[in-house]
């Protein structure tokens, strides 16, 4: 009897909930402007952040997305990291059809729970939960609600209502609650006006909201996301992580927090202390000592990343690195600092946002924007920067990974923002000389000598030091845009100590069958053999975001091709000389007897250029593309 009764209740509730599920989010309700260029439409979003105290933040993310076609599937799932300090308390999800009828609900058993140890780490404690309805009848709508509890305030979620191309937003709201008297700071981008503020039970609630944001189209050479769409960053003043408390209201105070984490972790074991003394005994200058100790560190350690709990912020101590011979960027930089200190040289542990071309940084808003540590050794004349995770970097050279950007020095007085060095165009060279000979069948034999400097040698430094000879050959094969070839020689000579930036010399010998095409009495030959501009640009719509070029450089080529006697030029392309705000280009070909000489020089500048100048950039790059592919036509004189 009881059983039947329970069954009855179950049936009632089941049918009740079915009835309750009236259609929601029908596709027909989407404003037409939001469908343009969109693969998916965000119907609703709520990002709710409630700071209870510095070790308790309740974060709720509710999102409703209509997926319009297959390309929108990537916006359909749920995928979130968690760890000891970021718990996922609850996940719910519902799937609706185009009319808004509820089709299915997320079952807890369908949520996948996987390790999230990244490729570059040996160990981390982060895991990931993910779910997908894998629906294929388009359009359809998914709604997810995820509740988190953060047990720290070092990072507070940011609000990025759009954040992707082909994704429009009907509505999104950020709601942040913080106790009255708590200095919660924020910085908004591409947002008109101020947040609405109200007081509620002793707390201040601020809300931001956007509506009807059309989809963005992908554009080349864009800057950071905050340059293109609305974002709000949140930052704490007083904050906590694990058992540590800190203050992020200024760079100075944030630096003091880092200094506290590092305190007392720089004690070297006795044997290393005596090694330092021995190594530096005969060194005359600080510069020499820095080099000796840096090279010692490079030879005796390697990069191993282990990020567990507070270990994501706090370095393993110097003794750990000394005995195990490894560490991550924090541990190795801290170790190097200890080595220098033992030799009487002062240095600063330095926080940086690393990444090629990731130089944009909010200097006037103190929030942790960092993902890497380097070391700064101030000198009387010049400052030396050390990348401690590389076993091969020349002393004092940072390269494209950390150059030209604001970084936070941890000094005795707290944090201090300074900039890492920028490498100007004339230090980032690719200077190439080719001497080639074409035979009567069109086969070309050539010797190519190239000197790469500064940022242009970074890639070659990497492959020379970390890749096998076979891999180097394989990479060369992939780089060569030639129909068919045999590589006779590939040789690299590194000049790591070259000043002001390191250099790499490359020598290649190639045999290229069919390089010149020979048809009857004519020979067609492309004098730009190895340095052709990458691609054509084409655009239909008006450029909407500013154009960014990060690293300036110069490519200079000179090519000498000898062809068999008897050929005379029939068609040659004219000299090309372009001068624009983005850079300059020059190319010229001359024929003298049976010798073709080609010279080319490209200089690309760095900077931010207004979106309206895009057609000029397009014209510039397309002219280069064309010029780089212009052939010389030779004709054999009748005997």
């Amino acid at each position: 009897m009881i059983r039947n009764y329970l069954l009855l209740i179950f049936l009632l509730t089941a049918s009740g909930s079915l009835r309750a599920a009236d259609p929601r989010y029908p596709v027909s309700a989407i404003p037409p402007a939001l469908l343009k260029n969109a693969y998916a439409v965000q119907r609703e979003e709520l990002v709710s952040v409630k700071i209870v105290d510095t070790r308790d933040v309740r974060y709720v993310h509710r999102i409703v997305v209509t997926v319009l076609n297959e390309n929108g599937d990537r916006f359909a799932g749920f995928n979130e990291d968690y760890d000891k300090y970021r718990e996922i308390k609850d996940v719910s999800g519902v799937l609706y059809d185009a009319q808004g009828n509820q089709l299915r609900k997320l079952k807890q058993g369908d949520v996948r729970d996987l390790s999230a140890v990244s490729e570059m780490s040996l160990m981390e404690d982060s895991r990931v939960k993910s779910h997908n309805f894998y629906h294929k009848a388009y359009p359809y709508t998914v709604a997810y609600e995820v509740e988190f509890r953060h047990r720290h305030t070092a990072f507070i979620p940011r609000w990025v209502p759009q954040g992707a191309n082909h994704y429009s937003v009907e509505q999104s709201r950020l709601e942040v609650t913080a106790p009255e008297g708590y200095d919660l700071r924020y910085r908004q981008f591409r947002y008109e006006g101020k947040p609405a503020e109200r007081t509620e039970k002793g707390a201040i609630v601020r809300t931001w909201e956007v509506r009807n944001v059309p989809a963005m189209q992908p554009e080349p050479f864009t800057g950071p996301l905050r340059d293109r769409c609305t974002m709000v960053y949140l930052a704490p003043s007083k904050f906590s992580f694990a058992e540590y408390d800190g203050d992020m209201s200024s760079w100075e105070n944030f630096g003091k927090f880092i200094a506290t984490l590092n305190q007392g972790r720089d004690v070297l074991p006795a044997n290393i202390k005596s090694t330092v003394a021995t190594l530096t005994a005969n060194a005359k200058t600080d510069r020499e000592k820095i080099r000796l100790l840096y090279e010692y560190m490079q030879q005796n350690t390697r990069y191993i990343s282990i990020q567990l709990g507070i270990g994501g912020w706090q370095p393993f101590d110097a003794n750990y690195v000394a005995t195990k011979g490894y560490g991550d960027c924090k541990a190795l930089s801290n170790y190097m600092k200890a080595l220098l200190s033992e030799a009487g040289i002062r240095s600063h542990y330095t926080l940086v946002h690393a990444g090629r071309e990731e130089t944009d940084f909010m200097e006037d808003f103190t929030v942790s924007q960092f993902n890497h540590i380097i070391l700064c050794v101030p000198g009387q004349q010049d400052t030396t920067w050390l990348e401690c995770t590389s076993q091969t970097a020349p002393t004092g050279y940072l390269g494209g990974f950390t150059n030209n950007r604001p970084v936070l020095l941890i000094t005795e007085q707290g944090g201090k923002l300074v900039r890492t060095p920028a490498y100007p165009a004339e230090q980032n060279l690719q200077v190439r000389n080719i001497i080639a000979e074409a035979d009567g069948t069109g086969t070309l034999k050539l010797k190519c000598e190239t000197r790469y400097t500064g940022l242009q040698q970074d890639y070659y430094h990497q492959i020379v030091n970390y890749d096998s000879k076979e891999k180097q050959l394989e990479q060369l094969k992939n780089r060569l845009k030639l129909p068919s070839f045999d590589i006779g020689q590939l040789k690299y000579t590194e000049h790591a100590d070259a000043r002001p930036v390191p250099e790499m010399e490359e020598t290649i010998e190639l045999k290229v069958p069919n390089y010149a095409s020979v048809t009857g009495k004519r020979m067609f030959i492309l004098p730009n053999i190895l340095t052709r501009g990458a691609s054509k640009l084409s655009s239909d719509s008006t450029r909407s975001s500013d154009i960014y070029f990060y690293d300036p450089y110069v490519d200079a080529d000179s090519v000498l091709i000898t062809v068999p006697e008897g050929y005379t030029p029939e068609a040659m392309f004219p000299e090309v000389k372009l001068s624009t705000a983005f850079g300059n280009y020059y190319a010229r070909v001359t024929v003298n007897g049976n010798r073709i000489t080609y010279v080319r020089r490209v200089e690309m500048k760095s900077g931010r250029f207004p979106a309206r100048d895009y057609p000029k950039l397009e014209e510039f790059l397309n002219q280069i593309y064309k010029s780089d592919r212009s052939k010389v036509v030779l004709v054999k004189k009748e005997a």
Partner: protein
Amino acid sequence: MQLKTVVLTPLFLVWAMMLAAQDKTPVKYGKVSPEDFKTRYDIDTGAAAVVLADVGSSEFESGRDWFIQMYKQHRRIHILRKSAYEKANISIELYMQGAAEESLSNLKACSYNLENGKVVETKLESKAVFTEKVDRNIVRKKFTLPAVKEGTIIEYSFTINSEFPTYLRPWAFQDIEMPVLWSEYEVSLPEYYEYLFLSQGYNGYHIKSSKDSRKTFSFNMKGESLASPSRHVSVTPGITTHRWVMKDVPPLKEESFVTTLKNHISYIEFQLSSIRFPETPVRNIMGTWPRFMEEMGKDEDYAGELMRANNFLSDDVKRLTAGVSTAKEKAANIFGFVRDNYTCTDYSAIWKSQSLKTTFNKKNGNVTDINILLTALLREAGLDASPVLLSTRSHGKIYAMYPIRSKLNYTVVSVYAEGEEFFLDATRPFLGFGKLHASCYNGPARKVNASADPLSFEADSLSERSVTGVFISPDDNGRLSGHFQRQYSFFESYDARSRIREKGQDVFFKDLAKGFVADIEMSNGKLQELENYSNQLLVDYDFKLGEMDESGMVYFQPMFSESIRSNPFKSENRKYPIEMPAVTDYNYSLTLTLPENCSFEEIPKSTIVKFNDGEGIFQYLVQQNGNQLLMRSRLKFNRASYEAEEYQPLREFFDVVVKKHAEQIVIKKKKA
């Protein structure tokens, strides 16, 4: 001598006892002397690291209530360059399922550095070993060796006790990056268990031996029921210990056109074939294909659910087959429904991951889940449908003769309609009815039915034919304009459809215009058969060529976008076969008419080149009639697979094609 073919040696053909006393394992854990720190190894002078020894063994041991499997490994690596530092990061995977699990024990690891002529040891601390729970079934033990520099020798050894008693771990004698100086595997088998040994590769054994002995096992076997007590059992079977050693094995590196290196690396694996306990009848584990398929047909984790009525499918089947008369149409509707509504989350799975009903409702599953669902729906409609088991190209070859479960990883479906058999795969979004994906063309396959019908999907039987026609003539203003039409091959059609869906038709045509070689203005782009996945895609467009320049000369490559611009065979030599995905046949024709005021100054010459006595043919035919030029290019092969010895001629053949395709036509304006 090279071992080319797979050697299958059933255990019952045991070799006579002939244990050689020489050739002992050359390394012992912890014994490293200064002489071991060589600075170069002749086998590969450029190696970044060398495996000095890799020694493993598998043997049966007494577990609590049954046999367990004990696997031991000891590996020693000499790290010579920084680029090999990652070889000091070790990850050991342990598997668990239900109550059975694998556990790691006796793990030790040590680094050796030569300092001032002395060997300095740095041991791994036990707390530096991490445990990563990857998912429900896999745990990873991870550690890195301390004190690793250029020149460090590292070694580690461990034991895995496995509660999967009859699963013998396979052994790779060869590495894909490092040379291996000594690789040794020893397997001890009690007479109760018979295994097939499957070995492959191009390196011969330095030692291959076996010896007999006896060993006593004892365990407390569980009682028949919960109430009955467990009983102590002790047995002393005969044991045969097999030992295989390879010496100085060079690494096998990946190159283009290979199904998978798994097919070529020197490797041995084991398949349990029968169990013979004393006084019980012999139990054949691996019998014949029909018996294997009978079991798969009944297995709840494979096709078992197909034997029952699956009424929950009937509404959909009725809807999909309403008003349809022929079996083929019924099958096509059902196939389209599954393909267009279900998502495949794993393209390599022999077992279903969930019940048929769950797959039906959740709308996703692995390849076997989805194609078993397709079979169920087809049967619900009264059609004669069966699952077909195969191995995809990247999973490696299967042995036509032996039904080995681990060799199979993919299910497709056979269905008969009006007496004709069709093979279906509903897991790929753009596959048409009766078509299989390129990855399925990997040789033998078997149907899951009583007779386990043998099937074959050979790349050699799969023709990939494309046909392109280009017509160019002057427009009213005397400017050369043309029409381009191309029928894509099946695989090309598949790729083009997915590109079109991803990027849209506009971008697709724009990319075509960019790839045309000559600068053109494109218009009237049309796609035929875009939605009809069973047919080849047909692409059409009009174009205008650029104006003539001042010089009065025009040059262009008559193959335009269809020229083969680079030789696919970039390496100078090859050590293993070339395995192309299909037999290709590319056809191109051009009809070019010039305006009255122009003439041909130069045209390419006709050529016919044959590869290997006609197994490959390249025709390049040009014919001029006054102001009109007809040109044809055909590149055709009769085979998809080639031996390593055929690499050079094949590469040279392609060189000719590339050269001919790059030749130009020269057009000259007549003087007024």
